[in-house]
């Protein structure tokens, strides 16, 4: 009897609950409608941006279909082209384009990893140094100067790099100023065309990247260092810590959250190598070390003018890239949430 009673009670409660939810649901939509009517100007303000994101950020997702279609020129619309299944992916992974694709794939990771290993610590070290400079004027001055390259366009930066690394055209034109410098120190031989030799490309790309971004990148670390209380340093000093020990036991732990987040973010972005800069710096001779997935896509897809070689292959490589990139970002975000309670979205 008792059991029966319980069931009866429960079902009654459930019924009540259901009814309540139903009326709440009805009420909810009603409330929404009242609120929207009352605040209509807010919604009008939102419409242009929502339309923008829909048209230019979400509509392109439909174009991913191009990877599965037999479509080899940019004039035909994606809808009209006939389906070709996974043909493009096959030619990418083990077919005609496999060699170039895997080379681009390896280069993407290599350039990113080198960029991470050499590029990540520099802004941190720079921020440490900035924090040592007690003269406000001198520190601001040097900081402002180091941010400057980040302000300048990629085209200008790469043009300057190209001109400074120019091998010269003796006797008419002396080599670029950097080439002369390297020749003076015997780092490169006479007539070395630095931008045309695969062995130099990654160094040029990464060193110029550090030159460009380290100053701006140091801002966030500098803010973290400045937030550390001076009393911590005093305490460490009383304990007899020298400068290195202070950095090891006070500064680095103090900026650990920032460091973690920035590192995770960088790992999440490992596939987004700055393709614009590579397009502007590479050439046929340096594809071997310079070609990354995005540049492979623009070239094979014929975006940079000329004949499109194989649009569906390009679209397939593109999709491959987008999916891995998204998982990397989501993974980075997940880890960041776990270790530091900071999430990107």
């Amino acid at each position, binding site marked *: 009897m008792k059991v029966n009673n319980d069931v009866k009670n429960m079902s009654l409660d459930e019924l009540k609950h259901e009814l309540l939810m139903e009326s709440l649901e009805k009420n909810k939509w009603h409330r929404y409608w009242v609120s929207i009517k009352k605040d209509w100007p807010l919604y009008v303000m*939102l419409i242009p941006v929502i339309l923008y994101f829909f048209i230019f950020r979400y509509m392109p997702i439909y174009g991913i279909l191009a990877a599965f279609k037999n479509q080899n020129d940019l004039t035909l619309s994606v809808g009209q082209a006939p389906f070709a299944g996974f043909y493009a992916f096959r030619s990418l992974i083990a077919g005609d384009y496999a060699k170039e694709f895997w080379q681009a794939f390896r280069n993407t990771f290599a350039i990113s990893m080198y960029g991470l290993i050499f590029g990540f610590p520099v802004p941190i070290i720079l921020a440490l140094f900035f924090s040592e400079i007690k003269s406000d004027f001198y520190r601001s001055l040097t900081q402002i100067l180091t941010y400057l*390259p980040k302000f300048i366009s990629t085209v200008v930066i790469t043009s300057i790099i190209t001109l400074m690394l120019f091998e010269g055209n003796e006797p008419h034109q002396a080599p670029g100023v950097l080439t002369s410098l390297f020749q003076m120190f015997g780092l490169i031989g006479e007539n070395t065309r630095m931008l045309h030799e695969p062995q130099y490309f990654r160094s040029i790309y990464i060193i110029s990247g550090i030159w460009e971004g380290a100053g701006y990148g140091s801002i966030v670390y500098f803010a973290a260092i400045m937030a550390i209380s001076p009393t911590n340093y005093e305490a460490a000093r009383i304990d007899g810590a020298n400068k290195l020990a202070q950095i090891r036991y006070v500064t680095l732990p103090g900026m650990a959250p920032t460091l973690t987040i920035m590192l995770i973010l960088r790992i999440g972005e490992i596939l987004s190598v700055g393709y614009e800069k590579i397009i502007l710096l590479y050439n046929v001779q340096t594809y071997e070390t310079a070609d990354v997935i995005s540049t492979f896509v623009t070239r094979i897809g014929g975006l940079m003018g000329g004949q499109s070689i194989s649009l569906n292959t390009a679209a397939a490589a593109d999709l491959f890239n987008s999916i891995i990139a998204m998982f990397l970002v989501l993974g980075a975000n997940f880890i960041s949430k776990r270790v530091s309670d900071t999430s990107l979205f």
Partner: protein
Amino acid sequence: MRRLDISEVIFKVIAYVLVTLFAIAALYPFIYTLSASVSGKLAFEQGRVIFWPVDFQLDALIAVISDKGFWIAYTNTLFYTFFGTIFSMVMSIAAAYALSKSRLVFRRQINFLIVFTMWFSAGMIPTFLNYKMFGVDFRWGIIYGFGVQAFNVILLRNYFSGVSKEIEEAAIVDGANEFQVLTNVYLPMSKSALATVTLFYALSRWNGYFWNLVLVNWNVEHPLQVHLRKYLSEYLMDENASITNTPYSPYSYMYAMIVMSIIPIIVVYPYLQKYFARGVNVGGVKE
């Protein structure tokens, strides 16, 4: 003044030296560019220009200034930067204002739709095909098609969320409508965030290269960056480029073009750099 440990002194010295070197390295290419553009032909061709101009002459700069194609490109860049920034700001401010209101229905969902685009993109080929489909291949199309960046909307939204509610309520009591609240309360109180976002938009327009090159069909609508690059690649392709009878080296001419294209940036930089630096710190994205 407390006594410094010897290791602290050494570290300080290293810090001063390296920071100074880094600052010089950051500035050097621009000084060199300027020097190369105003140096004499012979001095430049013999590689005697290292830091300061040698045999000062303005021929290369004057040649750039009197080139019509260069000014067409320049005007285009001004056009993209001016109208593009205004358009982007109007769109972003309106959206960020609406999104900063907690009473907005579906606020979380709309936020997510915007933030999501920062982390997933359909890819270059689909994006390209989509732009082509919507006919984004002329000046105004570029203005609209590259109008909004999610990061900037979020940055503004975060700032607007922090604006004091009391003043807003006072304005509403005084009979202000939504638009008046935005223009008379929010905008004056968010000047620095507005400056930061304006700067980001203006810079990305001024520096834009790839998509403009890929999408815009007519050469006369190409901006400075595309023009600059075209010129450089033509020179690099040409084996005999160095043999000219102009009163300046063709490479000086190239440097002069670069100088002309970065002058506006260098001039405004000292005044705007603080907003530029601020952008990193306010940019913490959270939903």
